[in-house]
């Protein structure tokens, strides 16, 4: 589903954020991406959604070579990918409902379908009663969950999460990770960038470890 083949990323200022990264994520697989701050985790996720273009190597997502993808096709790639952001990035002048509905509106779904799906997604993250509220009235953890609902509402085959538990207490963090494993169980390919090492360990999934832009570890859980 996601293949990195000798991928490098050099930012315009000359900084090499990723160096010769190789890995392959199967369809329906779930993995964590970890490493110190500034290791290049967010950069790697951005390359998958073509928010940035890689400067070297080859990336294949959902069977498509990103290097050859013209700009006009990028929107359709992004509709296959649900993303959550380190800084949530909700629209503060819109209700929770409208925030979550955004990917569906963009994809041109019908009104009733949008209602049904948004409420289902909000129900899943436990925020159905907040649908008419504005993001400003929500706690950091609640905003994070709205971001997750928005990422999954259009049922994308790929889910990328950047630091989804950054603002959460351990109990809530475990709960959120539980949500991701649920999505994974219905076949979604999930890649989560996270610092929460002990939590990652306890969940027992494949873990990619970045350091200074290089992939220094790719560990699979030891079968019990």
């Amino acid at each position, binding site marked *: 589903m996601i293949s990195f083949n000798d991928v490098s990323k050099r930012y315009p200022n000359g900084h090499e954020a990723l160096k010769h990264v190789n890995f392959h994520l199967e369809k329906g697989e779930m993995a964590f991406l970890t490493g110190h701050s500034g290791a290049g985790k967010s950069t790697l996720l951005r390359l998958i959604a073509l928010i940035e273009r890689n400067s070297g190597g080859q990336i294949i997502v959902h069977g498509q070579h990103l290097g050859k993808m013209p700009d006009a096709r990028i929107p359709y790639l992004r509709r296959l990918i649900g993303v959550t952001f380190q800084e949530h990035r909700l629209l503060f002048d819109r209700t929770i409902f409208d925030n979550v509905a955004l990917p569906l*509106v963009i*994809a041109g779904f019908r009104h009733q379908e949008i209602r049904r799906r948004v409420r289902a997604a909000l129900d899943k993250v436990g925020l159905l009663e907040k649908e008419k509220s504005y993001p400003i009235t929500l706690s950091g953890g609640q905003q994070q969950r709205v971001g997750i609902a928005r990422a999954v509402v259009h049922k994308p085959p790929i889910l990328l999460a950047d630091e989804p538990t950054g603002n959460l207490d351990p109990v809530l963090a475990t709960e959120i990770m539980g949500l991701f494993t649920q999505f994974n169980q219905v*076949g*979604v390919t999930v890649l989560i960038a996270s610092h929460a090492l002990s939590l990652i360990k306890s969940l027992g999934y494949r873990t990619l470890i970045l350091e200074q832009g290089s992939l220094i570890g790719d560990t699979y859980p030891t079968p019990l």
Partner: protein
Amino acid sequence: MKRPAATRPQSAPRPTPAPRPKKPLTQSHAWLAHHLYVLLASLGQFLRSPVSNLMTAAVIGIALALPTSLYLVLENTQHIGQSWGGTAQISLFLKANIDDAKAQQLADKLQQRGDMQHIRVISRQEALQEYRNLSGFGEALNVLQENPLPAVIVLQPVANITPSNTPKLIEEFKQFPEVELAQFDMRWLQRLFAMMSVVERGVWILAGLLALAVLLIIGNTIRLAIYNRREEIEIHKLFGATDAFIRRPFLYSGLWYGFMGSILAWLLVYAAFWMLREPIQQLSLLYHSEFELVTLDIPASLVLLFSGMGLGLLGAWLAVGKHLRVIQPK
């Protein structure tokens, strides 16, 4: 416009565990509904800050009202020219030694030319009578032994006056041995027509400049709107919005600015001409003329409306094309 479903890459089979539902057959309804939604939403956005938006619309309205009212002034002038042009006359003042009989002979000769719709001979006696009545110098004339006034032939050419061929006609009449003086009564009309074609060109130039101003105003307004909604645009792009999708609300708001501007321009012009109506009516009474003021009729109003909306759309299009590309999600 391409429908998203038609171009979605299908190179790999969909994952079976999380199948994306087939797009409903009523997709085009949804597409239309979306357009309608965006149209109304952009109106909503317009009404949300009515003062600043109305001010923008007012500037556009004034810019549109200027060439519109000049156009109307021109139309009215042309109207006056035409209604007076129909009565254009050429007066042939005959030499003093031409008596009434010879004058009548000349008139008959002119009649045979066939290009005069009306010929009237004012005999020397009649001329004197007329002069007496009109000038108030009747008593003074009584002192004179002899009638000092020549006979006059008043001609009205068939065609409506065309400023180009009357001078030729005048020249021709001047060659007649009986004619002392040939005079086109409406020489000022010629000048008026000449002046009007200058003014007309001026109106076009002004209209062009003001259209440019409208484009700049709308372009700048839309540019500000784009940067105010930068975060929103980025997030839309992150979730797969096409450029067309993002462009749409801005184009519609450009359309709304143009629409509101046109309406305001129409009202301004209407008000201005309404205020002018009474004095003009009095003026036309003085001239015994049944002059009817030309105002904005339905075709002209529609031209105004569509020009405004077209300029709004174009201004928005230019701004969007220039500034939307710069905004890429991070």
